[in-house]
């Protein structure tokens, strides 16, 4: 390969995600004029198989020895593009990304010219760095074949069993004193009215019997250090703390249920319950002679404070309404809804069944929510129906509130421990909604169940099995190529002062027989602290060298 840089630049439209907010063809035209750029093109989706093919073809056709993709974030897509480079025979460390979506088009949606200018600058910076990149080799590390599952609800139980069935040891950590999670509080599950205990019972039994699984009840994860393959965690049970070394971690901590205190007189007016409480009443046949039941949907959900749809409440209401009518067909059940979200085949069938059995659906508007007051014999519901154009008054025996699932309070703590993000609503956020829906951006950590977002049991089970499969991949391989982003000591500059040895948090640097610093690549995590502190400036950070970073920064200030 010739040393003369021949950079290929691929600028992604990302459909309208980038192309809709900045001038992609203009960025390409500009990229063509940059020193060292041999080829530039625009793609509708650079990450599509078509786009990757074009990168591979261009590497060969134009003898490219560096590739820059200007698109989304390297945190989700760098590996994919590096793979394409490798397939075309180009070392993956000769690849660089310019983040013109997450950190440009999406945050400058109303400033087309300035966003275009910024995208050009970001591409110029990436090209400046790319020109200096060098090929690197990757060391291999061992993966501890032990998984950790945090959360012993239906998702965590399923994930733990799935890992155990793959032959891995599992530590299942549950905060409460018993397994089963939220399902312990439920009776019947839609769509087929299975009993919750019939779902959790066998799962708990199998988990208890599986020799691979160690259950830690009444326990929380209090510390996490290390990386995929070797997480050094600390699990605290009561007063006792024990260290556990695991290769992968699955987050299955579930969600909470909003207590609708303050909504529609809950807790103040007699005869107002939640769907959860109604489930319990139905189970114990305690609904009694309540003849008129009014259910109110979206209680504290899809509001300014909590903008998301909790997804399960419409089906839950249909199920409970149907159960009430099956118990006593003379009952009158009204569901006051904003938009019915009984999605998919089964839940549409559930809705049709409920309607057939006589459930009355009344739409209300968010701006004019129903009003519940205390009447002579029970709660009185007034609701304006936009379809009929009039206000209806229903004298009810019982009002049932559909409150949403909300994120666990300690999500933030766990997210900081694991270094994984939460979304704006406070649920755990996956690496990529389509490409990596069960992974976190941090390697070796995975997500399933309602910790991720409100969802029903079948979806949680599917996700749990998926997450366990994802976690099983590196553990089954047993070894993993790690990034070559490590530090390297120039012995002709090192004075043996030992500053780097003291600074390294991983004991990756030792003194060699000549008294000079020496880095163990497989142990080095590539933070670069040693290099940035070396008094003799004798340490280079691979892939983030001083020269590369300086070129990148100077390119931001000045053209060419």
């Amino acid at each position, binding site marked *: 390969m010739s040393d003369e840089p021949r950079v290929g630049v691929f600028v992604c439209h990302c459909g309208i995600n980038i192309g809709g907010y900045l001038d992609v063809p203009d960025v390409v035209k500009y990229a063509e004029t940059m020193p060292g750029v041999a080829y530039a093109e625009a793609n509708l989706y650079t990450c599509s198989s078509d786009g990757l093919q074009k990168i591979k073809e261009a590497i060969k056709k134009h003898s490219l020895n560096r590739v820059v993709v200007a698109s989304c974030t390297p945190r989700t897509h760098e590996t994919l593009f590096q793979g394409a480079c490798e397939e075309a025979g180009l070392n993956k460390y000769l690849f660089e990304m310019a983040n013109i979506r997450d*950190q440009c088009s999406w945050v*400058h949606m109303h400033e087309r010219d300035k966003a275009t200018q910024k995208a050009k600058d970001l591409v110029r910076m990436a090209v400046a760095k790319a020109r200096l990149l060098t090929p690197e080799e990757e060391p291999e590390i061992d993966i501890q074949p032990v998984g950790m599952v945090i959360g012993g609800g239906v998702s965590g139980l399923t994930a733990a069993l799935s890992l155990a069935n793959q032959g891995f040891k599992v530590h299942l950590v549950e905060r409460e004193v018993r397994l089963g999670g939220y399902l312990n509080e439920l009776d019947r599950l839609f769509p087929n009215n299975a009993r919750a205990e019939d779902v959790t019972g066998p799962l708990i039994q199998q988990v208890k019997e599986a020799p691979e699984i160690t259950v830690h009840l009444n326990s929380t994860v209090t510390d996490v250090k290390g990386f995929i393959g070797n997480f050094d965690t600390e699990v605290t049970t009561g007063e006792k703390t024990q260290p556990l070394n695991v290769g992968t971690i699955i987050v299955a901590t579930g969600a909470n249920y909003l207590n609708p205190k303050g909504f529609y007189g809950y807790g103040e007016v007699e005869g107002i319950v939640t769907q959860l409480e109604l489930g319990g009443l139905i189970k114990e046949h305690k609904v009694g002679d309540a003849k008129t039941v009014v259910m109110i949907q979206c209680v504290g959900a899809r509001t300014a404070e909590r903008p998301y749809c909790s997804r399960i409440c419409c089906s839950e209401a249909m199920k409970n309404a149907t159960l009430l009518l099956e118990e006593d067909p003379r009952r009158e059940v009204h569901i006051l809804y904003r938009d019915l979200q009984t999605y998919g085949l089964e839940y549409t069938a559930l809705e049709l069944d409920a309607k057939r059995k006589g459930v009355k659906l009344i739409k209300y508007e968010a701006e004019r929510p129903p009003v519940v007051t205390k009447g002579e014999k029970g709660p009185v519901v007034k609701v304006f129906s936009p379809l009929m154009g009039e206000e209806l008054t229903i004298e009810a025996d019982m009002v049932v509130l559909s409150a949403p699932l909300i994120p666990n309070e300690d999500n933030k703590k766990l*997210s900081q421990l694991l270094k994984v993000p939460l979304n704006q609503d406070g649920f755990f956020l996956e690496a990529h909604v389509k490409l990596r829906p069960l992974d976190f951006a941090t390697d070796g950590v995975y997500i399933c169940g309602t910790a991720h977002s409100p969802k029903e049991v079948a979806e949680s089970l599917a996700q749990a099995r998926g997450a366990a499969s994802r976690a099983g991949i590196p553990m089954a391989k047993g070894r993993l190529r790690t990034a070559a982003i490590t530090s390297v000591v120039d012995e002709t500059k090192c004075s043996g002062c030992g500053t*780097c040895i003291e600074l390294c*948090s991983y004991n990756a640097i030792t003194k060699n027989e000549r008294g000079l610093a020496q880095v163990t690549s497989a142990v080095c995590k590539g933070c670069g602290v040693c290099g940035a502190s*070396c008094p003799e400036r004798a340490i280079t950070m691979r892939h983030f060298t001083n020269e590369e970073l300086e070129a990148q*920064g100077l390119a*931001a200030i000045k053209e060419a």
Partner: protein
Amino acid sequence: MSDFEPKIIGFLCNWCSYAGADLTGVSRIQYPTNLRVIRVMCSGRVDPPLPLSFLAEGADGVMITGCHIGDCHYIDGNLYAKRKFGLLERLVEKAGLERGRVMLEWVSASEGQKFADVVTGFIEMIREMGPTPAATDPEIRLNLRVAQEAAEAYRLRAIVGKEEKLEKKGNVYGDKLSQEELEKIMDDAVELEYTRNKIKLLLKEPMSVKELAKKLGIDSKVVLEHIVVLRQRGWVDLHEVRDHSPLYKTMEVA
């Protein structure tokens, strides 16, 4: 001043702040377009000579963001980032720039809104300060290069590298140094090393101690002490004696 568009460079650590900045995008939170991001693995990677070089070349501000203290992906890289930032701030001020042109902040991967707020706030602050004097004043530009040289030289780097240990574990005699004692050591060392590096740069043209003292605005006795140290280090040597006055010059390094 309304058409002044500050050039801002941001070092973002890969694990927290860069992810936080991505989340800002995913959440479609808007902020001004002035920031140009350099991704680094850890905020502790940001070696002070880099931001100093960018400031010398005309960057109006440089921000560094990392994981919150206690949350560093690399255990304690951000503690070292903080130490290095202390040196950076001091040198920026010595060079004649406002300390506020450099900023260190902690932004986690889940703080999309905070990232937007931090960037917007920094850009607004730089807007108020106005364009960097380094763009128009060659003296300041030269000072920033002096600062960069000082940050690249052994002594300051060795002190910064040891600060964390000196405060938490103590020196070879087991004495722990308080934050105030460390601040004093740093202040003195920065003062000394900055002046020595400035002399080194000025002496590319042969000059007498008196002339140097005038240019630096300090006592000629102090300048002479520096010259003695610089000669010992082999950085400066006697050039010639003119009118009974010795002229010194920086040694050319082949």
